[in-house]
């Protein structure tokens, strides 16, 4: 697969002289254990672009893709390349929380509009919020808060918490604890991309909690749930999770995930007309079910389209246009708008993986949090 290279950039430059084209930088982890996540974001974005006729905001769009390999240093270089060399109009994607945080100073300094499709770490939701940095995905704590509320509402008493040891992991567990008022038996942080959870699962078994809450995105999720299953813990022990059992991991997990409950702001099972169209188009083009990462990529393109139209080619107005467009564009997840800190205000749903006729499908079972604002927006100085 060939990335659009210098030729496309050259064409974009010539074209931009006539103000007829826009260049967007798309950065995602396209290699390594989280490649699924990155690929889905790119595919979702490109599908939306295709449905818009290859145009964003009425202008023909050139998309430059970069692989950040989930390394903050590489992400920084890619962002720098987008801003200084390719002179993009906006940057979309921005990978996981740690890569986003690494590139944040450069993004803020340049003023280029940045739309994150996979992260919403608490610092940028709070004191470090930036006028040109948005997240069209979620605030990290959100889905976890929904699970915390669900567990609380269901009367679960003792929960065992597990997550990988980085910013998002800590955010998820903090979010769960914010709404869950029962007993936290244990809070375990494992190494990022750790493949073998046998030691931790043995601890888990001996602690005998009522339920487990876990956050293991991408490849980590496949390993964790499979191993939980092999240890005989599923379906005995209810598993509440976020970003662990989703479109990227279900194809590998299949039966192993049956019975697990996950929280997210979107799933392919969500029954709205916009979403049904999106899922059908995605499945037709890519032959697989989209994940929430594909949905955010899809939404980001549509958001940009509307915002570019509003800004009318004026780069200085793009950030404000994006913010305004947030309330107007049609998101596949349902109601959506940007809060003062440029993070979403949206619903968080609960989905259960059920075994139906030999296949595992996902069913929408509850909506624990509606129109939910994050816990950090008050610390942000933006209006």
């Amino acid at each position, binding site marked *: 697969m060939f*990335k659009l290279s210098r030729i496309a950039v050259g064409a974009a430059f010539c074209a931009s002289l006539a103000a007829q084209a826009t260049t967007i930088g798309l950065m995602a982890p396209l290699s390594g254990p989280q490649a699924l996540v990155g690929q889905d974001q790119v595919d979702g974005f490109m599908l939306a672009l295709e449905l818009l006729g290859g145009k964003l905001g009425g202008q023909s769009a050139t998309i430059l893709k970069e692989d950040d390999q989930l390394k903050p*240093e590489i992400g*920084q270089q890619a962002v720098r390349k987008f801003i*200084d060399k390719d002179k993009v109009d906006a940057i979309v994607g921005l990978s996981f*929380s740690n890569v986003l945080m690494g590139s944040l100073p450069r993004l803020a300094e340049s003023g280029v509009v940045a739309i994150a499709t996979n992260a919403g770490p608490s610092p940028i939701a709070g004191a470090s919020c930036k006028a040109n940095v948005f997240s069209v995905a979620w605030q990290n704590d959100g889905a976890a808060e929904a699970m915390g509320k669900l567990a609380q509402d269901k009367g679960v008493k003792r929960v065992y918490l597990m997550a990988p*040891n*980085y*910013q998002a992991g800590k955010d998820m567990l903090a979010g769960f604890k914010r709404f869950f008022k029962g007993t936290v038996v244990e809070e375990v942080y494992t190494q*990022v991309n750790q493949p073998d959870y046998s030691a931790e699962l043995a601890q888990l078994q001996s602690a005998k909690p009522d339920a487990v809450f876990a956050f293991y995105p991408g490849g980590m999720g496949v390993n964790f749930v499979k191993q939980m299953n092999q240890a005989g813990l599923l379906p005995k022990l209810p598993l509440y999770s976020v970003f662990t059992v989703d479109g990227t991991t279900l194809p590998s997990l299949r039966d192993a995930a049956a019975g697990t409950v996950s929280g997210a702001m979107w799933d392919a099972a969500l029954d709205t007309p916009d979403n049904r169209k999106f899922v059908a188009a995605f499945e037709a083009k890519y032959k697989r079910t989209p994940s929430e990462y594909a949905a955010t990529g899809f939404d980001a393109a549509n958001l940009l389209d509307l915002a570019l139209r509003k800004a009318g080619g004026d780069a200085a107005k793009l950030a404000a246009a994006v913010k305004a467009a947030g309330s107007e564009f049609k998101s596949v997840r349902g109601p959506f708008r940007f809060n003062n800190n440029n993070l979403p205000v949206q619903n968080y749903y609960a989905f259960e993986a059920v075994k139906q006729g030999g296949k595992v499908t996902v069913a929408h079972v509850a909506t624990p949090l509606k129109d939910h604002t994050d816990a950090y927006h008050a610390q942000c100085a933006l209006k």
Partner: protein
Amino acid sequence: MINANLARPGTWVPISLLAGLALVPFVATAAGQPFWIAFFTRIVIYAIAASALNLALGYGGLVSFGHALFLGLGGYAVALPSFYEVGNGWLHLALCVGAGAAVALVTGAISLRTAGIAFIMITLAFAQMGYFVFVSLKNFGGDDGLPIAHTSRFGPLDLGSPLALYGVSFALLVLVTWWLARLRLAPFGMALRGAQQNARRINAIGLPVLRYQLAAYVVSGMLCAVAGMLLANLNAFASPSTLTWAVSGELIVMVVLGGIGTVFGPLLGALAFLGLEEVLKGFSEHWMVVFGPLIVLMALVGKRGIAGLLDVMPGLTGQEGWIGQARNDKILSGSQPK
């Protein structure tokens, strides 16, 4: 470079490359492409780090699989004071060199008790330990790394500015290359290189091999730490991922690719490795499937890396090539070059 003969490709090619590098900031600014300044700064910084490793690895024969530790230390020597809002460049430098020297002294002393594969593995172990220490420092970012808001300021000179950083890095690279070239033929360097060939003989002459090797290792560590400090200023970010064994491995590859123990090897290796990566990336996102075999080919050809290849090519006078190579090697055995 006492026997520098500008006619030899092994000399004029790297020098012209250096000249080219000196022009980069002017060309890039004129063309309105500041991206290239940052790109070449990175190459220059890695060339410095590779030069540092070359001192230990090429001259001393100490195969250190843990030099990423010093790179990371240098980075955090900037990030930690910056976290506490201290941007004084001299303080950063002092912390960087001090930490690099101290850690190199301790780890070197322990590692030099072993040899061969054991030495390689124990240096790796120390780097891994450093990695896990920094990952565990959750208050300072842990696995996510630590952004640097206050880059190193030396009076009016702020290393956060791309041009200033490039200037300083390039000047340091030239200085280091020149100094290592002189060191190679100075008594210290000769003893070190002799120890690589036959330690027993050097000891028998009365020169304490262990002390020479430790000194080389410590200087190498300090230099690598300074490279780390520059890298942190470039990225405005310090991360434990700089301390992984993959980075140590890349440094070794750069040194070997360029030519172990040669003067310009590290520069050539860094340029080739990072430059080729960027060129190939432009063609396909699967560039590694070509890059990998290219490196294998380089190893199979084995003429002491790129520097060696350049030496083998006939020079402008026609008399060079193998003869020039042989002439170089005669220095160690005592006969004078013409």
